């Protein structure tokens, strides 16, 4: 079952009076599988945040629709199964960290009694290393602390689906580790995670699936391995040489690969496998998704 199913989303904005409408999303269609961590990638201005906002009905699309947990449209009960962290979150800074999480816990119809909710807040604050700052007002929190507590408000009610827009932005190495740990933990519990990020190294470590946007269009949807293999022309040929153990030869493209295979056949050597060589996510992403400048 897909937890998110987006079909034919179109959205355009008018930038200034009298100016032409600019199409931001062009027939966006993809789905997010249940129980997986799916990365949502794209260059700046490719439409990631707009897509997320359309999915969550913060922006009304011109066309298209989004369904959750099979085929359900968003309704009040469904919202309590979803957690959301926006990009650059800003919260009520007159609240303390503990009050803030309590407010969002109650607002999310968290299935806890008051005392259980308080102990869950304690546990979450401890996990994010924010226990000592629980009584500080949010206006005294640093950007990284706000990002961490922002993630906690998204998971406070144990949602089945977590939507995160740039959850690691503004965090140092430690902060990113805490956030990744929380994401891993909620995913292990069965929560499906859909996250956008510019930090491709972190996406590579976290996600199993990817949806990639380029200039408002989906250019890839599928497995991470498939994405990284898709753009690589390098081929690895493994063969057995009677005198030696498994030998490997690299071909920089298909033509060269064919030549090597012919050569090996002439020498009567057994070919074990021929595989496309995966590159890292950043390299593949750069090739595929970034605009030509």
């Amino acid at each position: 079952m897909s937890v998110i199913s987006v079909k034919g989303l179109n959205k355009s904005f008018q930038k200034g009076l009298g100016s032409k409408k600019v199409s931001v999303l062009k027939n966006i269609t993809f789905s997010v599988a249940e129980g997986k961590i799916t990365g949502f990638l794209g260059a700046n201005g490719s439409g990631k945040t707009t897509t997320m906002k359309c999915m969550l009905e913060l922006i009304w699309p011109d066309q298209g629709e989004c369904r959750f947990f099979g085929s359900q449209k968003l309704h009040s009960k469904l919202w309590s199964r979803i957690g959301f962290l926006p990009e650059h979150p800003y919260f009520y800074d007159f609240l303390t960290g503990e009050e803030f999480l309590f407010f969002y816990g109650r607002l999310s119809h968290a299935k806890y009694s008051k005392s259980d909710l308080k102990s869950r807040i304690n546990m979450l604050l401890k996990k994010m290393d924010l226990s000592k700052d629980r009584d500080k007002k949010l206006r005294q929190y640093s950007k990284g602390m706000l990002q961490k507590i922002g993630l906690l408000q998204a998971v406070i009610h144990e949602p089945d689906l977590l939507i995160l827009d740039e959850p690691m932005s503004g965090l140092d190495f430690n902060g990113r580790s805490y956030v990744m740990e929380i994401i891993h933990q909620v995913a292990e519990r069965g929560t499906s995670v859909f996250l956008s990020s510019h930090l491709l190294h972190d996406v590579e470590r976290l996600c199993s699936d990817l949806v990639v946007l380029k200039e408002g269009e989906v250019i890839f949807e599928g497995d991470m391995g498939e994405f990284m293999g898709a753009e690589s022309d390098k081929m690895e040929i493994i063969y057995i040489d009677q005198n030696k153990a498994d030998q490997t030869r690299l071909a920089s493209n298909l033509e060269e690969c064919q030549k090597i295979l012919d050569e090996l056949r002439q020498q009567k050597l057994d070919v074990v496998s021929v595989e496309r060589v995966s590159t890292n996510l950043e390299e593949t992403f750069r090739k595929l998704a970034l605009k030509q400048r």
Partner: protein
Amino acid sequence: MKMWRNIFILAANGFQEVIRHRFFYGLVLVAVLILSVGAILGPLSMSEEKRITVNFSLFAAQIVLIAASIFFGSLSITRDMEKKIITTLITRPISRAQYILGKFFGMAFIMIVAVILLGFILSGIFYYFQIPIQSVFFKSLWGIYLEALVLLSISILFSSFTSNFLIICYTVCFFIIGHWIDTMKTLLQKTEEPFLRFISEYGVLVFPNLERFNWRPHVVYQDLVPFTEVMFYSFYAVSWVILFLVIAIQIFNRKDFV
């Protein structure tokens, strides 16, 4: 049931926000200062000491409450939108209508607390100057509260589509027109110009007549205000509040939070 729970949680949060806001304490200070000026002005005027004290004190209470309703009414929603706090609120099991109602009731509760506090201070001043406190005094305070509620709903309506500065400007316009409707109507009816006569007949219907809630002169002259009149104008105020909030919710429901 859950709908009222959501509204209550948001209203309680709004209440907490106001009482922790610096402007609130500034307003309390201003209220105390203006009321003190009223108390000092009275004895300076030889023959009309009591009349001036009553009039000025109630006027000061009205201004303080209306300033609070316009300021907090405009601030609470626009700040949530500008700082995008709203994106984490309406992606919860709460509707946009519940959000608006939560904000309104939070502020309405603040107003009632403020009216009670001002009532206590005014009672102290009246007691000091040996001015009898009659039921019309409470009716007058109730009138100030009704006016503040109407202005609060107007500022919430404008919050759904314009900026902070313009919300204050528009709401102040409604305040001025609302108090001058009767005078304008009388003046415009004397003209021969058909357009101005049309405005005097129908244009004024767009604005709530805020002078209807002004029972201050009755306190000054110790007149009676019939209970039926208070009930009627309470209903009049609530009708305007409902109308403004319904329009605000309709606009808010269609709004994109980019």
